[in-house]
């Protein structure tokens, strides 16, 4: 493997990893930025997505159905949770959200265990994406290229959604000044439910997309939530472009760090986080000082 093909493959590896990290981080940052809620259950929604994806593939035989159904169902559960419980807590301090989402993590995790059992479940890469392409003679999985593309599409989609649509405008406005938006006759509660649902749905989308690499397993949530936190913190809590930047940064540090300093693979991410926070306490693109 010559240097050029090595660099190309490693960069694509990093980008595909960045895509998965981005799906994980963006939903959390959206929820935090607008609702000021640190959603402990985010990793569990990611896991839920993977299991829903598995079932959707089993029932319909199509990965694409899973890609649609997983986020929809998870998003619905998230929105319902917001309407049923979180909504009653907006006047309370942050610790209430911490506890209630921690509780949700336990409950949802156990429900997943009861429904799908303890064994890891395989989700096949769809046939159309299961091949490889040769990049400078090195084989590279098509599915990983698809992940990079999916990450780019979702990033552009969210950006356009926030910039161009009425709902996107409302979301941005709500994050600035909820009372003002309320005074304009908009149902702020509905916007919040929507945001929480979308955030959870994005996590689930990440789960469905990660399932062909990892399988759907009960260990997913615990691993995912800390990654999601790191992405959101490095990028700046609540910053959408920040989460994208952080995902790419973390992925490159992980991929090249693991290659050259495998002993520091575990510490690399946290060192990066510490470094960023010491230099910019609010994260790369965060507002808070």
């Amino acid at each position, binding site marked *: 493997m010559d240097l050029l093909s090595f660099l190309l493959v490693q960069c694509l590896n990093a980008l595909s990893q960045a895509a998965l990290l981005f799906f994980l981080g963006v939903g959390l940052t959206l929820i935090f930025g607008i609702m000021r809620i640190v959603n402990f259950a985010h990793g569990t929604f990611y896991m839920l997505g993977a299991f829903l994806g598995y079932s959707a593939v089993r029932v319909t035989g199509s990965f694409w159905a899973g890609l649609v159904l997983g986020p929809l169902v998870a998003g619905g559960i998230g929105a319902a949770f917001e309407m049923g419980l979180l909504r009653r807590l907006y006047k309370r301090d942050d610790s209430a959200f911490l506890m209630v989402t921690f509780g949700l993590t336990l409950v949802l995790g156990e429900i997943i265990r009861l429904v799908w059992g303890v*064994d890891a479940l395989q989700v096949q890469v769809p046939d159309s994406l299961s091949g490889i392409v040769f990049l400078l003679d090195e084989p590279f999985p098509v599915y990983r290229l698809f992940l990079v593309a999916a990450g780019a599409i979702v990033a552009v989609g969210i950006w356009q959604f926030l910039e161009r649509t009425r709902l996107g405008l409302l979301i941005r406005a709500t994050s600035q000044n909820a009372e003002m938006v309320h005074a304009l006759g908009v149902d702020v509660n509905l916007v919040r439910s929507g945001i929480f649902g979308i955030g959870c749905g994005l996590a689930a989308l990440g789960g469905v997309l990660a399932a062909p*690499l990892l399988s759907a397993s009960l260990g997913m949530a615990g691993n995912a939530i800390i990654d999601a936190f790191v992405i959101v913190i490095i990028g700046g809590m609540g910053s959408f472009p920040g989460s994208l930047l952080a995902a790419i940064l973390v992925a490159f540090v992980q991929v090249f760090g693991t290659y050259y300093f495998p002993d520091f693979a575990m510490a690399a991410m946290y060192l990066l986080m510490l470094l960023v926070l010491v230099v910019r306490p609010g994260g790369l693109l965060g507002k808070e000082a």
Partner: protein
Amino acid sequence: MSVSRRVLLQTAAVAGMARGAFAADSIKIGIPVALTGPLGGIGAQMRRACEFWAKQVNAKGGLLGRPIELIVEDTAANPATTVRKVQEMVERSGVRLITCIVASNEALAVVPKLAEWDTIFVSGDNGDGRLTGESLVPNFFRPNVSGPMGTRAVTLWLRDSPMKKFYGIGMDYAWGHNSMDVFESEAKRAGKEFLGAVFSPTGTKDFSTYITKIRQSGADGCYLVLAGDDNVAFLTQAKQYRLGEKVQLLTEQVDEMGINASGDASVGLIGGSRYPAALDNPDNKAFVAAWQAEYGRLPQMFEGDQYQSCVVMQAGIEKAGSIEAAKLRPALEGLVVTSVKGPITMRACDHQAEQPGFVVKVVKKDGMEHPVPEVIATYKADRVTPPCNQMVYTD
């Protein structure tokens, strides 16, 4: 599942509320097993084997004329919880015999306390070489295959293979480093070249960089010491990079959970097995038949190995006529038991069972939903069991 669940609940209810009802009569065995968390899958297998065994024994009138009572507690694979739960079993329920602990770090946390509790611990799957080495305590027994033994079987098979150069990837965990050390020394003794190894943190999700490293190493074979989710993720991603076309993947243990979760990605994998259901001996045939009647499927690796540990425990208790540590310990030392893997010997020097080693290859078979392991080599007990208290081999 539903049947065994109810049995468990009854057991738990009895254990929790009406302790002492038939407490004087029953033989209580503590089952501190990880049922939740990432290791819940293995824990479920092991518990199932214990329940199956207890049911068999109780149906025949029990042990020493007393019924077996399993006291099952979930440890979530957290050593702090495990120590607390076992302590409770000992102090509250009067348990003096435990088995079925899943993770090695749980076992390592429990082992130093056994003397204080006057309790015997019969391992069902703990593979860490040191449990019968530097960390050995008198009340610990290991009827199951250890990590070094699994590796040894694979390297014995390698001696006759044309592959020359090897690379390794292990979990950055005591077990991973342990087994990789054994592999390195064994491979070198077999005249092979060991090019190096890399260790991935537990919970690694993206193995692409590691796969790049393995590919670059130019090895013919790559030895894996991975378990659980990490194992599945690696196999799945290796297949996506077509790693298997260039490099033969070898592993310490081929378990059905990993195969089922990674599907076709595991086909072609060669590795050690602690218990392949296909073993051809009368005890195993009877076991497999009874198991299939109960659960409608073949027993899996951890089920078979844990079952063997239960049978060893049973033989020891029958010989000792008691479960008191002072009587059970000498009874187990040197005991020869014939079970699913044929006759095995609990040697006295380090409490490790001498038993055969198996090498299997994962193949696809018609009519089966998942690929299955097929035995390709069997090695005698004296070749795979290390010298007393050792993790490395001399021949």
